[in-house]
């Protein structure tokens, strides 16, 4: 009995549709996950629709209202150039969320594919892990400078300055941050591969692909989900470090990381300036993490029988 994959057991249900429904039912039972999801969608919706309702231009310098605390005219206060912080945080959220999500997906996607292949196929292991070593060793800043030099102007003329720099940043962050995920996933795969249900599946003549995606991947999902939540936070922060170095978005495009960075020196003057983006980033990361927790529990058949 123990030779059958726990996942294969779940698979015995007749339709895959019911599997998704089942997962969803399990997911909503997880209180943290539901709260996380609600918070996440509130943030996403307010950054998408907020600027349409709150119509102050985040780039407008109101020079009579510099360094203000919250007032009626500026509910979250203003920065040292008199820019409205609510507008800036809403507009910044759009970009930060987009950068965080896309960069995280690229990084997790690359990390998972490379990690699983490397752990599962001993023949690929050597070359893929050496590739990982190389990426770990690459000096990030010079690499970014090179990439900006080579691609910025062509992307700018192709898709416009902001989309161009968005693509560049997202790809660069994604491509330079998958290595830890790959190493962890590989480690897990090496261990899972030797478990009875995998040996059994391959003894039964299952295809490699099928074993990898149906038996192994679900069992290494939890470190991937943790990496995803953490990866999103670090992508948002990395973007701010990039703009600080002059490699990110133009200086008049607000992002959460940038707002946090620009505000840090004003800590004793207008402390709220750093509090808002700080809360926003933390909330996103925490809600993504709880959603990840819920998703993992929902996909784990052993926990399911418990509930």
């Amino acid at each position, binding site marked *: 009995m123990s030779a059958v994959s726990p996942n294969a057991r779940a698979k015995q249900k007749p339709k895959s549709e019911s599997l998704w429904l089942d997962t969803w039912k399990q997911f909503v039972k997880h209180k943290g996950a539901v709260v996380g999801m609600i918070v996440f969608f509130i943030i996403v919706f307010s950054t998408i629709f907020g600027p349409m309702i709150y119509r102050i231009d985040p*780039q407008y310098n109101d*020079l009579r209202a510099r360094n203000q605390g919250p007032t009626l005219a500026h509910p979250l206060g203003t920065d*040292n150039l008199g820019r409205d912080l609510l507008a800036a945080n809403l507009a910044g959220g759009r970009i930060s969320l987009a950068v965080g999500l896309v960069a995280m997906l690229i990084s997790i996607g690359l990390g998972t594919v490379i990690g699983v292949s490397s752990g599962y196929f001993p023949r690929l292991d050597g070359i893929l892990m050496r590739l990982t070593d190389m990426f770990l060793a690459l000096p990030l800043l010079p690499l970014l*400078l090179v990439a900006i030099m080579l691609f910025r102007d062509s992307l700018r003329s192709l898709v416009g300055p902001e989309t161009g720099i968005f693509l560049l940043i997202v790809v660069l962050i994604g491509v330079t941050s998958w290595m830890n995920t790959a190493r962890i996933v590989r480690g897990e795969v090496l261990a899972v591969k030797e478990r009875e249900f995998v040996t059994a599946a391959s003894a039964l003549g299952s295809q490699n692909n099928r074993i990898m995606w149906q038996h192994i991947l679900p069992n290494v999902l939890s470190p991937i989900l943790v990496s995803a939540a953490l990866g999103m936070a670090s992508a948002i922060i990395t973007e701010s470090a990039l703009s600080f170095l*002059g490699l990110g978005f133009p200086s008049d495009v607000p992002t959460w990381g940038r707002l946090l960075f620009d505000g840090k*020196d*004003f800590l004793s003057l207008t402390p709220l300036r750093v509090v808002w983006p700080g809360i926003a980033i933390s909330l996103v990361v925490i809600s993504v993490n709880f959603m990840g927790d819920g998703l993992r529990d929902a996909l784990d058949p052993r926990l399911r029988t418990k509930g």
Partner: protein
Amino acid sequence: MKIKLLLAAFVLGTLFNFGFAQRGESGELNILYWQAVSLLNPYLSGGTKDLDGASLVLEPLASFDPDGALVAKLAAEIPTVDNGGVSEDLMSITWKLKEGVLWSDGTPLTADDVVFTGQYCMDPDAGCNSSDRFNDISNIEAVDATTVKISFSKPKPFPYQAFVSSLSPVLQKAQFATCLGPAAQTCTDENFYPIGTGPYVPVDFRPNDVVVFEANSNYRDPAKPAFSRVTFKGGGDAASAARAVLETGEADYAWNLQVEPEILNGMAAAGKGVVVSAFGPNVERILVNQTNDDPSLGDNRSLYMDGNNPHPFLSDPKVREALSLAIDRQILVDVGYGAAGQATCNLVPGPTDFVSSANDSCLTQDIEKANQLLDEAGWARGSDGIRAKDGVRMSILYQTSTNSVRQGTQALIKQMWEEIGVETELRNVDAGVFFGGDPASPDTYGKFFTDVEMFTNGASGTDPENYLAGWTCDQIADVSNDWLGNNIDRWCSPEYDAMIAELATTAGLEARAELSKKLNDMLVQNYVEIPLVHRGGVSAHINSLQNVHINPWDTEMWNIADWTRN
């Protein structure tokens, strides 16, 4: 009676203290620079931090005081035509050394050391970054043990370049004898622990981190310096350096505190220290590209091509004037600079004798007039509020180096230009790339592949000749000179070139000042560059530190021998 006695004793005591000040009696001095010293040889590293660090040890023959006047350091006096030190034909200058000056190892300073230093820097393989100060020198000779004669290959109306200011101090021949030519690069010990004549001697050097100095026991004034030990620490950022002096009192002196004025004022309010500033030659300005920088031009982008590649709208002086009129310079100062800046309309902002007053009208913003100028020139606003003519939109790509004050200025100016119907796209580039000369990079200030760019520049001393000569036609930055020309605006005027030639042969401070003003006015009134802010050095020192006179024309440490603690 008793009170009188006490008073007399007090007065006597004070006199006594002043009269017989002791070397090293003030204890330790902590100096904080947010850029760290890399080496103590100013000929191999031109960064301000390195010059300042080295000036505790190495001294020039003469340096500039805070007013821009020459003061003798190792020289007995400043040579002039009047005292016979400079020849009538302006072809040579003769320096007499002070008597009895010793190197910190106890050996005497001689004219040979000066001659050697000239040889050291003029060697083309040494990579000496002050070599331009030795231009047009045909010979340096030691007339006797304390007399040096420098001969020029052409008349030098301003001969105070070589061996003047912290950029060009005297090295000890005995120590650096083996460091000539390519060997200069590998003389690590010599560059870290130079033997000097200055008030301090380096005892512990950690590159790019900290230098510890001790008082020079052979210094020529037995009562100086007042501190026995100086710790010159580097690293971090400007805001935290200011905090260490003004709020926590961990350091006695912090350099170049370019932080937003409200932050600096907030810290100064703690009362532990004072913020000091001084205004020298530096002006933050906007450069206006006279050539077309359209990327579709490919290899012809931003090339002058004898005037056949003009910018679609910035080559029109009226447009440039409108851009200048639309800027409220005082707001830029209030928001970004505070004590570190003054609104200016000149490219030569000092010394006082050289400052033109013909352009001061630009200090008041005039949006109405700017709009009128553009209307007259035929630039009509489109439906989106942006002006256009013959299908050309007034859209400007505005680049500068990465720096929070500069990005603030960019945002303010973008809004001001919006009011006159000009669209602006902002770009900031890493300073190391922007100010670098990598021929492969499109983002260097010299290539100028944008419509306008902004940075600070100024003369490297009190005399602006070399600086003003940067706008001549032959200096236009171009592929042929690897974009290394100094005329980055690519502006060309034969009239201007003729006046520069005249300046090169004009002697006498007054006449030179008059000509310089004319040249400055020509640049400003043609709106070749748009001056914004006269930038000063801003530093902070703790209240108890005395005799600090921050100097915009030379190193801030120029009089460190006189610093004392109260």
